[in-house]
């Protein structure tokens, strides 16, 4: 097993095919990154949604308590 390119510049250009190869791998990073991040960000938004609901519920509970005290 050996590195097939003599220099880093050659590695980047890949004898003219560089742009195509790198574009593909870059696209793969984007696609996989999206697939990884999408459920995580969704989870976050569900969490904030839940927190907001809890806050509203707490507030309503507090108001009810105030009313009954008065």
């Amino acid at each position, binding site marked *: 097993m050996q590195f097939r390119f003599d220099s880093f510049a050659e590695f980047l250009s890949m004898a003219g095919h560089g742009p*195509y190869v790198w574009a593909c791998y870059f696209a793969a990073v984007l696609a996989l990154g999206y697939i990884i991040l999408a459920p995580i960000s*969704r989870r976050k938004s569900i*969490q904030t949604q839940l927190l907001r609901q809890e806050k509203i519920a707490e507030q309503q509970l507090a108001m009810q308590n105030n009313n009954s005290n008065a």
Partner: protein
Amino acid sequence: MAWQWFHRLGSPKWFYEKTTAWMPWLLSISLLIIISVSIWALGFAPMDAKQGNSYRIMYLHVPTSIVAMAAYYVMAIAGGIGIIWKMKLSNMVMKVAAPIGAVLTALALFTGAVWGKPTWGTYWVWDARITSVLILLFLYLGVIALQEAFSDQEMADKASAILSLVGTVNIPIIYKSVDWWFTLHQPASIKMTSSSIASEMLYPLLAMIIGFYLFFTWALLSATRSEILQREIKTKWVKQALLQKA
């Protein structure tokens, strides 16, 4: 006994708790494989005599195409189970499989097109495989659009399950037809699969396919877990699971 297991599998809560431990492992192993094979493919794989360096794209294109195809079947089977046994979890798997499959299909299409430029001198050739992948993308987009169109989740699940099952029956027919159409219109001048692939190149390709399958499994589980949280948001265990960590 078997049925008990089946019903437990259908319980979102059980599924969520069971898979928690697997998630980091699945992701790290799959990424490890994908990244190391990518490095090998980019820097260490020998150059192809005919196609030069552009064939390094194959290590992305072939696995994504295969997994994108498999994802459709996973989606359809999940939909079928959801219809027949009315299993909630199965419907969720079906719903989340569609966008993942669509992204992978789009990636397969993109890499195929970019690979075509240095090989055939043009980005788009109406070759049998790329045309089939394009139609697969349309099938995915149809399922996603249908899922989005319904406001009632139960109806959305049923509708997209029926559509994906119909698509499953159709896919082999579409592929065969497109193949047949291609041989009719294009004499075998453009042929991109090298007939014999050296084992030195084959094993990394196989590893990459496994890596992508593992990654897809992780993605499917992860998205399903989010979907579970959304749909079961009113239950106590979801509140606990989410608020403890907040």
